[in-house]
């Protein structure tokens, strides 16, 4: 037993705290006292491996102890008829058509990416792919929303232990590219957002969607007593030890060196055949359950799979195949080494399963068996080293942490109109959050699998503009398509977490509808600061309510997600960032609507109401203005407008469509002109000041291009849906000209817009 140590918990609070720190398990003194009591009843001391397992299972990352109270109260009860199995598993399962379903997962890999951007981002993809594969689904799309401080940040303002945002940004993109492209799943959508609050705390969120035949859906639970546990994939090593406990605290000056080993090492060329082998074994009905090894490694997966079926497990730990010798049993048990999957298999199918993995050159070993009692027992070369009740291990604590509301400054400051609108417009188009992201997008293979109908770039070759959403046709035999978008505007969430979060859902819906698809499901990745700080906890609770405010009323709900707290580093907390992945369905991919103007002489409509809601806008940020109102959302207005636009889309009455978001009306118009090089003359008449009209980022708005013969149908349909609209101009010419209440504000050649919009990231990143 020299490989395993007993730990004495019969000590003072001070000593308990020390134990938690020295072993790296990250439990509080109160939590350790619960453990102490449990082992007092057992009449023995815990072993190091038992304590480590509890540290994993009770971490914020694994048991959502600070967040589950709010998630249950506001989000989990929302229902939609298309949901098949949501929230409970590694990925949500939603109906695609009569015979098929799709699987959705979204996660963060923030802390690892801040320490080691390339490996952190790459293994983020690895993990999310496994979450989809373990449902029996074939991954078909990756979605990567990523958030950084400005790559132009001066080195002098960067704390000593923080890596330069340009280095992190470029490393993260490299990691996503090298893993995603190698594993052969298209990185089809995402967002890249810059904000000074991400200094030292970049956010790397990653989503994956898969398609599965309904009869092949498999869950993360074992079948029956005496099923065998088969561990397949890469060897277990020292990489990724304490990944979840590291993700459940703030980063500090020592994190870079102390926690380097918490970042795993990715290997897409082990993953690619692993996916094939797992799916093959599942389709042949040889498995009773499957789950990926993610946070907490073996310590989480075995117990969760057994307990989900009401059983327990017995594991012979020495059977686990290793990357390196001399790992301690507790290290094997909690290691988060990548590219591993756990399957439960009935005895009669063992041989065949192992043969499939052999064919694919993927190692697979039997490590244990299901037992009838809800208990976990581990042996190490014959010695019992772990014996705990599974319900005790996996239930974990739950907290309703104190909150402190933060006063929101709505006061309207006086500010002047821009002296020169053309200069202002170019400044907006040229700003990093508005400018083209093709430097990022083109590094990802968004066409692999040959199911991409429309990527994030649309329009004339090499002058493409941004798409609202990407479209994939998952099945050979069906024209039905899935539509993907990911959205959040941290600027507005930081000012007002409720309305900012509601706005993120609104934006997802807008993007899906603009593509001609109906909203079908959402996933959320909630990136916030330290929940032990009442103001940060308040931000979280407000955000969750904001999401629920919209999601419950438009026929699609949250089906999967992830909470990432403690996103704080030496330079402060990140802005609260509830990243939303929106998924839509379109019946025939030939009917999608894209952003670029299609032809000269068409009408241009503004759909929705522009309001004086300037807080958090790109315009205010560029002018360093504060205060003002944050854009709000009326979910009924959103539902009505969406229904109207979708009816028009079905009747083929919309030639092109773009939602209005960051950068306001002007950026949306510019992007529509850029794609096909077709200009527009815009004449806006309203009661607002010119800058508010052009640069407000009010929600629930779109621009539509409509042929003049269809204008009656267009207008009467929107009227019938109680949706306001205005005819604001016509397409044509080689420039974008803007008149506001008869005052000419700008006339900008498209060629100049293209230059301003395309250049910034290439100039900075090379």
């Amino acid at each position: 037993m020299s490989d395993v140590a007993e730990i004495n918990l019969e000590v003072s609070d001070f000593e308990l705290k020390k134990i938690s720190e020295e072993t790296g398990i990250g439990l509080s003194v109160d939590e350790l006292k619960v453990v102490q009591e449990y082992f007092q009843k057992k009449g023995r001391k815990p072993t190091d491996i038992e304590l480590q397992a509890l540290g994993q299972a009770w971490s914020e990352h694994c048991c959502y102890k600070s967040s589950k109270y709010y998630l249950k109260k506001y989000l989990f009860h929302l229902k939609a008829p298309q949901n098949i199995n949501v929230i409970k598993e590694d990925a949500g399962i939603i109906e695609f058509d009569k015979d098929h379903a799709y699987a959705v997962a979204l996660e963060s890999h923030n802390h690892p990416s801040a320490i080691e951007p390339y490996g952190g981002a790459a293994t983020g993809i690895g993990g999310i792919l496994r979450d989809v594969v373990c449902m029996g689904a074939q991954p078909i799309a990756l979605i990567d929303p990523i958030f950084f401080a400005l790559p132009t940040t001066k080195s002098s303002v960067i704390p000593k232990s923080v890596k330069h945002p340009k280095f992190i940004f470029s490393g993260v993109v490299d990691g996503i590219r090298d893993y995603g492209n190698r594993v052969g799943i298209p990185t089809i959508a995402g967002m890249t957002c810059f904000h000074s609050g991400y200094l030292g705390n970049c956010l790397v969120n990653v989503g994956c969607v898969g398609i599965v035949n309904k009869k092949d859906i498999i869950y993360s639970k074992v079948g029956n007593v005496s099923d065998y546990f088969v561990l397949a994939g890469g060897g277990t090593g020292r990489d990724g030890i304490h990944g979840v406990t590291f993700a459940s605290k703030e980063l500090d000056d020592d994190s870079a060196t102390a926690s380097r080993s918490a970042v795993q090492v990715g290997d897409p060329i082990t993953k690619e055949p692993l996916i094939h082998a797992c799916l093959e074994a599942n389709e042949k009905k040889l498995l009773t359950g499957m789950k990926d090894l993610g946070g907490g490694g073996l310590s989480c997966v075995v117990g969760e799979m057994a307990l989900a079926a009401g059983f327990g497990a017995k594991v012979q730990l020495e059977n686990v195949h290793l990357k390196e010798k001399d790992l301690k049993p507790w290290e094997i048990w909690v290691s988060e080494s990548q590219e591993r999957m756990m399957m439960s298999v009935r005895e009669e199918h063992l041989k065949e399963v192992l043969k499939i993995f052999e064919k694919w050159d993927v190692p697979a070993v039997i490590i244990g068996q299901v037992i009838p009692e809800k208990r976990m027992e581990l042996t190490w070369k014959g010695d019992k080293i772990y014996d705990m009740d599974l319900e005790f291990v996996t239930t974990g604590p739950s907290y309703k942490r104190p909150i402190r509301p933060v006063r929101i400054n709505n006061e309207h400051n006086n500010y002047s109109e821009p002296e020169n609108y053309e200069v202002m417009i170019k400044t907006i188009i040229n700003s990093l959050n508005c400018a083209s992201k093709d430097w990022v997008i083109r590094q990802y293979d968004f066409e692999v699998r040959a199911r991409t109908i429309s990527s994030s770039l649309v329009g004339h070759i090499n002058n493409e503009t941004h798409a609202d959403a990407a479209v994939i046709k998952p099945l050979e035999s069906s024209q039905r398509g899935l539509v993907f978008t990911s959205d959040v505007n941290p600027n507005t969430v930081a000012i007002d977490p409720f309305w900012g979060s509601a706005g993120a859902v609104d934006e997802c819906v807008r993007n899906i509808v603009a593509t001609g698809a109906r909203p079908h499901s959402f996933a959320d990745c909630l990136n916030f600061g330290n929940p032990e700080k009442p103001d940060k906890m308040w931000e979280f609770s407000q955000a969750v309510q904001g999401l629920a405010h919209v999601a419950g009323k438009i026929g699609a709900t949250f089906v999967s997600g992830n909470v990432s707290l403690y996103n704080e580093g030496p330079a402060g907390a990140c802005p609260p960032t509830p990243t939303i992945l929106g998924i839509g369905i379109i019946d025939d991919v030939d009917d999608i609507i894209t952003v670029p103007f299609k032809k000269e002489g068409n009408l241009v409509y503004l759909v929705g109401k522009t309001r004086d809601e300037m807080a958090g806008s790109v315009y205010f940020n560029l002018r360093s203005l504060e205060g003002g109102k944050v854009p709000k959302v009326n979910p009924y207005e959103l539902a009505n407008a969406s229904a109207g636009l979708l009816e028009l889309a079905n009747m083929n009455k919309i030639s092109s469509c773009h939602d209005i978001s960051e950068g306001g009306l002007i950026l949306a118009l510019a992007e529509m002109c850029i794609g096909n090089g077709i200009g527009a003359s815009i004449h806006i008449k309203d009661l607002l000041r010119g800058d508010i009209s052009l640069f407000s980022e009010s929600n629930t708005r779109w621009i539509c291009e409509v042929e003049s013969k269809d204008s009656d149908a267009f207008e009467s349909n929107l009227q019938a849906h109680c949706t306001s609209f205005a005819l604001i101009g016509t397409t044509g010419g080689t420039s974008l000209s803007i008149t506001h209440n008869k005052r000419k504000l700008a006339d900008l050649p498209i060629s100049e817009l293209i230059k301003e919009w395309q250049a910034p990231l290439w100039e900075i990143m090379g």
Partner: protein
Amino acid sequence: MKPEDINICILRIEGTNNEQEMYDAFKRLGTKPHLVHLNELSSLKPYQCLMIPGGFSAGDYIRAGTIFASRIKSNFMDELNNFIKEGYAVGGICNGFQVLVELGLLPGNPKGNGTITACLSRNDSARFECRHSILKHVSSKKCVFTSLLPQNEQLIVPSAHAEGKFLLSGGKKAYEKLEKNGQIIFKYVNYKGETNAPYPWNPNGSPYNIAGICNKRGNVFGMMPHPERSFFSKNEHGYSGKILFESVVKYIGGTF
């Protein structure tokens, strides 16, 4: 042969990841494609066509295609040479093109001794790039993969690679010879159809804008962009990536 009797071997190892779309392309034409892992391939006899799909075979951690090529060499190189000699078709897309070049099968040399005379080198931009390319069919010679596509016809085909710059040993003369032999099949062009269009039309900096070539006989063919990904996107004359698959199926059907 009828299409339903044509057996196509789509060869894969770990990291090849474009095999399903290649499979679908041939399946749609009524032939019998087979996804075959190199570990399972015992003979080429059952097949009339060998396709090497795109991807990152074995990770491409050394020069693209070399690991896959050396595993083919040590397993069944003689059989593959005979296969080609008998006139059967061999095609490689993207990583598959890189493998055929690393095998010395493209552009091939008169002695047929497998000497490597070309390579697909790192893109001038030094990065992986995914963008649509316009390809002009510049050859008049009947490459078995493009025989149904009229000369000078242009197709829009996605490119997605980091190593696609086609370099040929022997300098200008060697390129001229390739051109004269009609072995240059596709060139990158712009909307105007200019075969000297610069980056980004030519995404990798290939001299003479070369995007795809064949051997002298025309039955071994490789290209960097992905016709299987533009199977349905027709140009104004109704041609799409589909035409390459139709051409080779027609060739096999008429020859064997």
